[in-house]
């Protein structure tokens, strides 16, 4: 009974000790979190310059990524417009053209077909091109009848190609134009660009690591005396390392925020002219900005790079500083 009593008292004591230790560990971290930020504020100009460099380094891959996203967005709209245009021979009458359209429509791989008569084509051309005055001068309508074929969605590029081959050989057809080819080329180019951006992002990320590592290294040397003194007073390596890791965190995170501002501001600035251009193409296209996910990647990625950069510098240079 007596033993059990003393045991429970003992365990209560160690429990409260552990609780106390956890509490002081937590408060030390909170302290470090804020004091390392204040440390940055103490040299505002130098800190701002470092953060600006980090911001630019992070903004470059981020804006390239955003640019690619936008190109992809634009080309997605084109994807549905991948179509085959058949320009019929001038001697083909409009009735013949209509019959041809009906026959073609029976084919499975064709989703829809639209006939643009010579007159329609002329009208469309007049309104869109701005050459209406010049066209008035011409006696005959120079434009051919056009059949616009929309292939069934989801058929393979090979089937598309086969469809193109067969319709281009029809006797009524002067020329056939397949709009998909350049789109495929664009996709291939974008795939290359994607890889390129990844490589670039990797390079800039290591640049950020080096910049933060070097900045932390300088801070360590500036605070050499302080590090020696706290080592003499019994500070553990973990304790000494902590403020530098938080500095790295702040540099990286603020660099990420700076990059976010740079990217979003410049895309916002492009918004108006892009909208104007889109209207000229009868498109509702709007520039995409960094979404929440991409923004988080930028902030958290920046912070992580900061911490890793600081870890590299601290691991290397704190050992060199021993009290004398």
């Amino acid at each position, binding site marked *: 009974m007596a033993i059990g009593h003393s045991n429970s008292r003992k365990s209560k004591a160690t429990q409260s000790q552990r609780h106390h230790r956890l509490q*002081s560990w937590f*408060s*030390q971290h909170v302290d470090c979190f804020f004091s390392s930020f204040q440390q940055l504020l103490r040299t505002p100009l130098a800190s701002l310059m470092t953060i600006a460099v980090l911001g630019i380094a992070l903004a470059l891959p981020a804006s390239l990524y955003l640019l690619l996203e936008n190109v992809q967005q634009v080309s997605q709209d084109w994807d549905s417009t991948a179509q085959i245009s058949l320009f019929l021979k001038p001697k083909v009458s409009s009735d013949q053209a209509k019959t041809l359209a009906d026959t073609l429509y029976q084919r499975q791989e064709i989703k829809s077909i639209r006939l643009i008569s010579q007159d329609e084509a002329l009208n469309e051309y007049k309104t869109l091109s701005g050459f209406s005055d010049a066209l008035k001068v011409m006696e005959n309508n120079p434009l051919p009848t056009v059949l616009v074929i929309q292939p069934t969605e989801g058929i393979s590029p090979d089937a598309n190609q086969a469809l193109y081959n067969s319709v281009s050989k029809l006797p009524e057809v002067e020329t056939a134009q397949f709009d998909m080819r350049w789109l495929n080329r664009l996709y291939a180019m974008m795939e290359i660009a994607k890889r390129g951006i990844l490589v670039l992002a990797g390079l800039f990320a290591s640049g950020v690591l080096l910049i933060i590592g070097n900045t932390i290294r300088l801070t360590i040397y500036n605070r050499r005396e302080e590090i*020696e003194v706290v080592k003499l*007073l*019994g*500070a*553990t390596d973990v304790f000494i390392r902590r403020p530098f890791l938080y500095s790295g965190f702040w540099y990286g995170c603020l660099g990420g925020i700076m990059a976010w501002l740079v990217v979003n501001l410049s895309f916002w600035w492009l918004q108006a002219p892009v909208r104007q251009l889109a209207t000229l193409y009868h498109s509702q296209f709007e520039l995409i900005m960094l979404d929440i996910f991409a923004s988080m990647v930028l902030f958290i990625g920046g912070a992580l790079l900061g911490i890793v950069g600081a870890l590299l510098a601290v691991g290397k240079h704190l050992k060199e500083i*021993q009290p004398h």
Partner: protein
Amino acid sequence: MITFTEVTKRYPSGYEALKKVNFHVKRGEMVFLTGHSGAGKTTLLRLISMIERQTGGQIVVNGQTLSRITNPQIPYLRRNVGMIFQEHRLLFDRTVFDNVALPLVISGFRPPEIQRRVRAALDKVGLLTKERSYPITLSGGQQQRVGIARAVVNKPPILLADEPTGNLDPALSKEIMKLFIEFNQVGVTVLIASHALSLIKSLGYRTLVLQQGELIGDTYPST
């Protein structure tokens, strides 16, 4: 409390700073360590605080054999050893209060406890009114007293002082020594390296004498 057995310190260059030193300091004792500069006083203190390791012999401090202590354990050992330096080694970008609080912050004390202990330590050295000042605004004697407050704020069982009165005039030196005597009277083991021979003699404590790395004297006061 502090036991040296055949302790030798040889530097890689071949220079022997300490040669087979033997002595024992009891718990609660106050001992002076004298000798010319270069005799090995500072080296001896540095071995106790593990700033350096001995190359031969055995050192036991507060029941712990130093050669068995690994590098990660050193900080915890140092928390039991208060150190005072000739050049004070205060941090000049922090207030007196923050300087004295440093060992407590390192050990993870909570703010109310830190405040209480720092005030008590500053009161002890007579600088309670200066807690908001920066060290640069204080005189040499005052700075040294801040250094002493920082060394004792953690209530370590051992105090080591390396030439604590090196830059002070005789009157101030005496005041500082009086402080050490007061700490010793409440049970702290004190080891002071100093070459202020006449002052040491007038105080009447056990004195170890080093010469060229050898312990050549261990004198107790005649009383």
